[in-house]
């Protein structure tokens, strides 16, 4: 049953989270990010959000903190293996996660503003009504 293979539009929307070595300079990180994203042959530039340096919940090797970057892009699935290979080889990337970003299929996506505002809101009302 190859019905899934027939797609009129062979690109999909992805979300990638990169955790870079926090010891790297910001400019080095930006350079690396650009190089990696260039592998995707994006038709339109990816939306990139920098979370910046953040404490890791547990140690990863010798790392205790990481530089988080979130990126959204649309690309053909065939570009991903090469992209992920480069990510694995890059010593500056502590960890990464590429996921499908097609929330509209089931539910509307959460915009970054919503996410940010909820972060702020949960700061002051941590105790929910139980």
């Amino acid at each position, binding site marked *: 049953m190859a019905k899934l293979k027939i797609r009129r539009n062979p690109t999909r929307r992805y979300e990638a989270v990169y955790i870079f070595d926090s010891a790297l300079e910001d400019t080095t990180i930006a350079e690396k990010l650009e190089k990696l994203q260039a592998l995707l042959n994006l038709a339109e530039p990816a939306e990139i959000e920098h979370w910046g340096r953040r404490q890791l919940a547990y140690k990863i090797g010798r790392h205790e903190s990481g530089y988080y970057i979130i990126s959204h892009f649309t690309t053909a699935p065939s570009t991903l293996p090469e992209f992920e290979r480069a990510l694995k080889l890059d010593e500056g990337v502590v960890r990464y*996660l590429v996921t499908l970003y097609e929330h509209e299929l089931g*539910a*509307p996506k959460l915009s970054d503003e919503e*996410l940010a505002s909820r972060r702020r809101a*949960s700061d002051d009302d941590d105790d929910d009504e139980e």
Partner: protein
Amino acid sequence: MRRQKKPCPITEAGIRYVDYKDDRLLGRFITDYGKILPSRLSGVDARHQRQLSKAVKKARYLALLPYVKGQTS
């Protein structure tokens, strides 16, 4: 007598899709040791509990949440 069902806290918050990057939200649904809270305790509805468990696992991989909390290493 059946106990009254708690309203789903995630539905109540108006969240349609549980995001794995929202570690503050996810943090409310894990135990002190970092385990995922069962929905019978949290009152989360089945659809959101499924999303939640996947989200927690992704968040753990990204070191946003610990696999085991309260460990001194």
